[in-house]
Every structure is written in structure tokens, then in C-alpha cells.
């Protein structure tokens, strides 16, 4: 008995030790980047390029939401307002102050991050549905404030946001814009992987499950809640800025309603709340479905709402969770089998 358990332990340890070197670990990323680099050639027309951009911007948004909601367990309904803040901040920087896109994007991202951290403060005291209500209130007031501020175009919308200029040439084509969005989305996914696979991600999960026990393990709960809101707001700010500068360079407060938030939630829930791929899988699937069902748009919300409920009931950990469970079970069986063979 004792010997068998040691050999099984060795199997796990060997497995951990046999993980590839750090440099080799980055091969999939290179492969992924190559694939995304060549992807536009597999598409047929400019509309497809537009959809690709939309997917990637949604990926950035959903990955950010997954960090704060899926991993850190903070039920925020204000994520879309963060995108609005990023979009309008970037638009103001570029259109009103003449700041080039390459500076407006990081500036808007940082600005949104700051706002996000402030919004995270109520999360010190509020949890679950109460936090959802508080963030919903904040988000709606942001949208309404934009809608009545003439400086931001009010209900008419903010138009003539300058496109990025690359070596003297404005980037208006969707295919050209793709090569700005794609590296950013890829970097966003990469950073989220690094964060969530490190001690930071583990601490997020711990405070999601039991903040009292997390504190007893030495985790500064407030710091990590704030960090989660900050990181997710940085993602939303970046995505918002990309929305603003994409042709035709127009923003309207109605693109930032609770409807958009529900769509975003659907992405994360379907992809897998708290799954490292959750945001990516969900954003891709939902954006495509959203586009395919555009003709039935008046039924979209009803269907999306139903899909959320069904997913939560029958697939609580989303598509990513299904994949994970399968892999974990297979490994356990393999270890047990190795043990049986050894005995």
C-alpha cells in the first residue's frame, strides 16, 4: 500500500517535472500569433474583417470581465460602462486635444483602470446581488451622464473620432485595423494567462470561494479585490478605445446599455466563468451567433437570456469547464491505472 502510493506520487511529480521549459512554453503563443496573422486571408470580404475585429474587441472585454467576475467572484454589472469610459476618454483625447491614437489608447486604458479601481471600493463591503445593484447603478449613471453632456455629443453621438495614423497613413480599412486590434487582443489573452496561472490568480479564486479563509491564509482581501477591478477595467478601457477609433469613428451612448452587458455576461458564462479560456471561447461564439441572428434582433435578448439560464443550470462551468473536467478525469484514471500496474 505504502509503496504503491509512493509510486503514484512519483507519477504526479514526474508529470510536473516533465512540463516543458519556459521557452518552449511560449511555442503555442507563436503558433497562435501566426494563425491570427494569416487569418484575414481565409476570409472573403471586408465585412468578415469587421466581424473579426468585433470578435477580438469582445475577447478583450470578456477576458477582462472573466478576471473580475469569473476568477475573483465579484459580481459586477458595470463592465460595459468601463468600456464606455475608455471609449469616450480616448475619443476626447484624440478628437478634442489632437492626441495621436498611439498615445490616446494607453492614456484611456490607464484612465479607465483608475476609475475601475475606485468603482471596486464598494466591493469591500458589498457582495453578490448588492454589489451587482451598486455597479449597475454606477454604470447606468455613466451612460446617462454621457447622454446629456453636450461636450461628449450627448444623445446625437460623438462623431469624427480620428482613426489611427500609421506612418502618415490613416488606418480606415478593417483589415488594416485588424493588425492593430489583433496584437492587443493576443497580448491581453497572454497577460490574463500569466496573471491567472500565477499566485495572483490563485488568490483571486480563493477570495471568490471564501474570503475569510483566504484572509486566514495571509491574503490581503481588499488589495486583491481592488487589483481584480483594476485589471478588468484596464481591459475594458483598452477595448473601449479600440471601439472608438474603429471606422467610422462614431460613438453613441446607446451602444453601452444593459443589453450589451447581458451579451457580455453571456460570453463569459458560456465560455466558462473562471475558466482561463472562458472569455475567449465565449466571445468568439457569441459574437458570431449575434451576427448570424441579426435578422431576428427583436428576439435576441429573450434567446440570450434563456441561454444564460440553461447554461447555468446544465453547464455551470461553461464550455471551458466541460473540457477541464474531461482532462482532469482522464488524468486521475491514468494515475490510478499506473498504480494498479505497479502493484
Amino acid at each position, binding site marked *: 500500500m505504502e509503496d504503491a502510493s509512493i509510486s503514484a506520487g512519483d507519477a*504526479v511529480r514526474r508529470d510536473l517535472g516533465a512540463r516543458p521549459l519556459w521557452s518552449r512554453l511560449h511555442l503555442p503563443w507563436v503558433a497562435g500569433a501566426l494563425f491570427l496573422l494569416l487569418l484575414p486571408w481565409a476570409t472573403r470580404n471586408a465585412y468578415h474583417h469587421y466581424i473579426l475585429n468585433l470578435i477580438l474587441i469582445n475577447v478583450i472585454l470578456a477576458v477582462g470581465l472573466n478576471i473580475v467576475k469569473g476568477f475573483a467572484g465579484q459580481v459586477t454589472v458595470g463592465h460595459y460602462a468601463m468600456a464606455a469610459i475608455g471609449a469616450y476618454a480616448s475619443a476626447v483625447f484624440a478628437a478634442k486635444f489632437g492626441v495621436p491614437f498611439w498615445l490616446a489608447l494607453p492614456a484611456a486604458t490607464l484612465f479607465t483602470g483608475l476609475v475601475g479601481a475606485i468603482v471596486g471600493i464598494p466591493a469591500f463591503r458589498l457582495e453578490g446581488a448588492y454589489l451587482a445593484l451598486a455597479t449597475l447603478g454606477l454604470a447606468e449613471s455613466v451612460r446617462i451622464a454621457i447622454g446629456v453632456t453636450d461636450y461628449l455629443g450627448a444623445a446625437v453621438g460623438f462623431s469624427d473620432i480620428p482613426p489611427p495614423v500609421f506612418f502618415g497613413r490613416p488606418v480606415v480599412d478593417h483589415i488594416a485595423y485588424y493588425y492593430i486590434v489583433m496584437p492587443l487582443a493576443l497580448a491581453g489573452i497572454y497577460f490574463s494567462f*500569466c496573471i491567472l496561472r500565477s499566485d495572483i490568480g490563485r488568490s483571486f479564486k480563493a477570495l471568490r470561494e471564501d474570503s475569510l479563509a483566504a484572509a486566514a491564509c495571509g491574503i490581503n482581501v481588499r488589495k486583491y479585490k481592488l487589483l481584480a477591478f483594476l485589471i478588468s477595467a484596464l481591459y475594458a478601457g483598452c477595448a473601449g478605445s479600440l471601439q472608438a477609433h474603429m471606422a467610422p469613428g462614431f460613438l453613441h451612448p446607446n451602444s453601452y446599455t444593459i443589453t450589451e452587458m447581458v451579451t457580455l455576461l453571456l460570453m463569459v458564462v458560456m465560455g466558462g466563468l473562471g475558466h482561463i479560456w472562458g472569455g475567449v471561447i465565449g466571445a468568439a461564439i457569441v459574437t458570431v451567433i449575434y451576427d448570424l441572428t441579426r435578422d431576428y434582433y427583436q428576439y435576441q435578448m429573450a434567446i440570450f437570456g434563456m441561454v444564460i439560464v440553461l447554461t447555468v443550470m446544465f453547464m455551470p462551468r461553461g464550455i471551458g469547464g466541460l473540457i477541464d473536467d474531461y482532462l482532469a478525469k482522464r488524468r486521475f484514471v491514468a494515475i490510478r491505472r499506473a498504480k494498479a500496474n505497479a502493484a
Partner: protein
Amino acid sequence: MLLEVTGLSKRFGGLVAVSKLDLSIREGEIRGIIGPNGSGKSTLFNLISGVYQAEPGGRIVFAGEDITGYPSHEIARRGIARTFQLLRIFTQMSVLENLLIGYHPHVRYGSAAATLGSASVWTEERRLKDEMMELLGFIGLTDYAEIPAGELSIGQRRLLALGRAMAMRPKLLMLDEPAAGLSPVNVDKLLSTVLALKQRYGLTVVIIEHILKVVMESCDTVTVLEHGEKIAEGAPAAIKDDHRVIEAYLGKEMGDAEVRAFLKAS
């Protein structure tokens, strides 16, 4: 003294849970804390670990530092690890991840390095995973490393809770009813694990326990609480015969006159 508690009180509304308690824990000892239900044992743990704030006037000094009023995570970082009566393990995380959370205070890389995924993070993660696998072997859960902790049995969960506290590399380990709900075989297993861990890491241990066998066999000193006050303290053998302790557990022995009065009244 490793831990010195003086004049510690805690009230919940009108109820006095802990009242002007003094407690000194010597370095390297195993201290048992017993007492009937509601005598303030768990409240004492919650006060020491910063879950509750003590009433003004109480003082908690750990390893020469006054930690009164510190938040939980600061106390944990100073080397006090605890388990919970209801365990509070992270059921959706893997067994290995549970231990890694315990190791959190000792992780050496910063947030920036973690975000960029630098090589140093990778090496550190590998090192601490190896270290946690060793601890996992010690508590006998190696096979379950990657299984969600929620799928473990109660006995295994108790071992995991112990392991998570040990992963913190504490100076003082506080166990809140570690053997509750275990079969006799598992109680022995847990007991020997605690003793082995204590030997190996030179720990100081405080145990709250209802199972007297655990207290009598493993503790150097036993403190008895009732209604939030200390009513006895000493070697296990002496405590067992102390009339106040027997009274606290079984009630007062009635004299003849009292029995007659009681019978008349009923």
C-alpha cells in the same frame, strides 16, 4: 512566551463570549483547550486570528510583537496558522492549489513579473509545486493532487485543512476541533500526523478538541474554559480529576438537602 494573551474579552450584544482571559503559550508546547459548548473556545481562536476584534483593554502579543487589532492576513503573515471548525477549504480548487494558497505569504515574485510571465515566475512556481507535493505526500493525499477538494471525504478534507495551514510555514498552529466527525482510526491517523508535523517543523500547537482522547494523549498542558473564563489549567492527568472541570461538563453534584428541595419543587 510565544503567545501572550492578557485581559481578552469579547461581547456579542449582551452575551459575554470571552471574559478577561489570560493565556500564555510556551514555544514548542502542545496546548489543549477544552470546555463545554459555548464556552468561548472558538471565539478565542477568532480573536487571536483577527476574525473578531477584541474589546478595548485586551492585548495579544505574538513573538514579542503586539498584534492586537491587526487584520487577519497580517496575523497570518506573522506566523499564526489556523484551521476552522467547518474546515473552509476551497472546494472548487484542486487539492494542490489549496496548499499553494496556504503558501501565499511566502511567494517571492511580484505582480509585474507575474503579469509578464517572466521566467523567474515559472521557476518559482515549479519549485513551490515540488515543495507542496512533498507536503501532500506527508499528509497522504498525493494521488489527489489535481482533484477538486470538494470531492474529498471528510477525513481527507480534515487532513487537507491541516496541510493548508502547514503550507503557511507557521510558528503557531491553531487547530479548531481537528478530529470532529472522524472515525477512531482516522482520529489516530490525524493525531500522528499532527505530532509528526510538530516534530519535523518545531511547531507550537494549540488544539481545541471535544474528543478527550486527543487532548489527554497529545497535549502538554490543558486549559479549561467555561462561560468565557478560564476555570482550570494544568497537566492533562491533573485536569481530569479537577472537580470544577467535572462540574462544568457534568453539572454540579447535588447535596442531600438540595436533592430534597429539588424533589419537593417538582
